[in-house]
């Protein structure tokens, strides 16, 4: 695009991330991508569309179906001077590689006291939707928050998708970059120029005074929708998108709770030992006197994800459930 034209364009979440990836691959010849169908085909979700043609078969390489194997391979690659990206397609496939992730990738910097870096980017689609059913609908991020060593990134807008991926591709730590299925085709304004969004900086998506919602992933747009309708009822809701779950920007959350006194954490993934529990515990610990009511959690139903549309719909927190939870909190 010629300079002078609008630098902001509307594009999808996937396109925005692809733009960040492309720029990084141009800048840094040590970046390569492994995965199934990420070569000539350009990725099941178009995450690498056109890159094979541009960067060739060594930088975009299809793999056999051996997730543990290629994650382990990427570990060794990162230890020896390159910057691997594992594109899992569905993040569920990461589970066969949890040993490599937990005992190798997460620990190498520590074990070498920083003499080695571990710039591995692990990306894939998370979440419930479209009848993907029980083996293609998981999120799993609480585990990666629990284990020390990972950065966990959950972009919710095209702008964030680009800016956070840019940061991930300069970061020397292992990063999980988790793209929710329902967000892939969301469109939004994205600057053409390179930019990076630091990890650990939440975004206040909507200001409000009565109740704070921390939304995770698809619960951000849902919370914004709920906030909109609640405004009509006279309930003023502040919506926060943490953007990264590790590190977690507690400062922004605490200062919002300082204002509202009430917090709902809305997250499609499982409740027990989930991110909502962590945020609730920290808010209580550091902001107890600000709390006018207990922190509430709204999570997906604690069950494997069913296929059938009415069952699938029943496990995912809805806009209406967010609104109900906020109404209850507001009334406390």
């Amino acid at each position, binding site marked *: 695009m010629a300079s002078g034209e609008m630098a902001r364009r509307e594009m999808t979440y996937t396109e925005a991330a692809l733009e960040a990836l492309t720029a990084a691959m141009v800048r840094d010849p040590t970046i390569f991508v492994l995965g199934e169908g990420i070569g000539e085909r350009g990725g099941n979700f178009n995450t690498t569309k056109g890159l094979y043609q541009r960067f060739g078969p060594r930088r975009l390489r299809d793999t*056999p179906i051996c997730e543990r194997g290629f994650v382990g391979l990427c570990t060794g690659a990162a230890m020896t001077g390159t910057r691997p990206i594992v594109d899992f397609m569905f993040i569920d496939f990461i589970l066969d590689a949890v040993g490599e992730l937990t005992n190798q990738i997460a620990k190498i910097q520590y074990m070498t006291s920083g003499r080695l870096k571990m710039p591995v980017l692990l990306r894939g689609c998370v979440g419930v939707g479209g009848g993907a059913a029980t*083996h293609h609908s998981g999120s799993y991020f609480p585990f990666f928050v629990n284990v020390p060593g990972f950065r966990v990134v959950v972009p919710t807008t095209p702008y964030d998708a680009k800016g956070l991926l840019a940061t991930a591709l300069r970061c020397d730590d292992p990063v999980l970059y988790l793209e929710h299925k329902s967000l892939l085709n969301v469109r939004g304004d994205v600057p053409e120029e390179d930019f990076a969004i630091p990890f650990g900086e939440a975004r206040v998506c909507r200001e409000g005074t009565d109740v704070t919602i921390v939304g995770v992933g698809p619960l951000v747009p849902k919370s914004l929708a709920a906030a909109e309708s609640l405004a009509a009822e006279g309930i003023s809701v502040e919506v926060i998108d943490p953007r990264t779950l590790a590190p977690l920007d507690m400062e922004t959350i605490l200062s919002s709770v300082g204002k509202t006194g009430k917090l709902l954490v809305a997250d499609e993934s499982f409740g027990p030992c989930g991110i909502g529990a962590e945020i609730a515990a920290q808010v209580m610990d550091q902001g107890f006197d600000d709390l006018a009511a207990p922190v509430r959690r709204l999570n997906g139903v604690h*069950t494997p994800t069913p296929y059938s549309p009415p069952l699938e719909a029943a496990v995912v927190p809805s806009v209406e459930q967010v609104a109900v939870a906020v109404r209850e909190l507001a009334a406390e």
Partner: protein
Amino acid sequence: MTISTDKLLSLYRTMVLIRQCEEQLARSYAAGTITGACHTYVGEEAIATGVCAHLRHDDAVFSTHRGHGHALAKGVPPRELVAELFGRETGCSGGRGGSMHLFSPEVGMMGTSGIVGPCILQAAGAGYSFQLLETDQVGVAFFGDGAVGNGAFHEGINLATIYDLPVVFICENNMYATEVAFAYSARNTDVAGRAAGYGLHAEQVDGNDVVAVYEAAEEAVARARSGGGPSLMECRTYRTRVHAEGMGESGYRSQEEIDSWKARDPMVAFAKRVVEAGDLTDADLQAVDEEITEQVADAVTFATDSPWPDPATVADHIYGEGA
């Protein structure tokens, strides 16, 4: 060929049932009645048919994402298969599973998996049970060439071999995993040869020839049943439809290649052979075709008329009773 006329007819019936069901499911997918993934078995029918012909309901089959054919061949009623993909309460998994999660333990269909690999290990596990309980049951795994590069293949085949488990491993080598060629994923594409390296009985079979599959499976199943240990059959075949409904071909394989395999359609080849040999007549076969057409239509009606599962039950049965 020493296969009885009845058996020949039954092999044909199973293949036609799978084919017609798959084509119906493809139409239903296109119509939006089925969501999620839908991987059809079109072109590969001879394998499930030839293998499952030797299995009893108390033999345990474990399968993969492309599992409709295995389910039907193992005895899951077409009504329950179609209802499952339609997401209905009457589906074999109560609508919880969809295309990639077909469970019907009543007929020994112990499950299909959306994750590539586990079926190999689970079949070994069924073999472990049967060995420990000293029954004559058999565990069977169906999986693609894509599973061959996975650690589950290596670990599962090895465990079954060293423990001498009553298991039959069926590798459906259709030359591609989605669009990635097996010849790319493996320098040596001789799956049977590689499997033999583990020390189990392994052989390559023409997966488009139902009689060849039937005969090889007869031996392998008998071996397992009689305490002779595990076998692997590499069945060379081809899927003539796209990887999953809704996907395009995207150029990873040539039209000539597809056409050449379509010309080797297992049902057409079988029909030609049995009619020429005088074992069955065109009329016999046509009667089967018509019977199945009705059965599939009935399955669709059944599924369409079936209730949706009750969302109030969505979290039932995560745990068993008690404890």
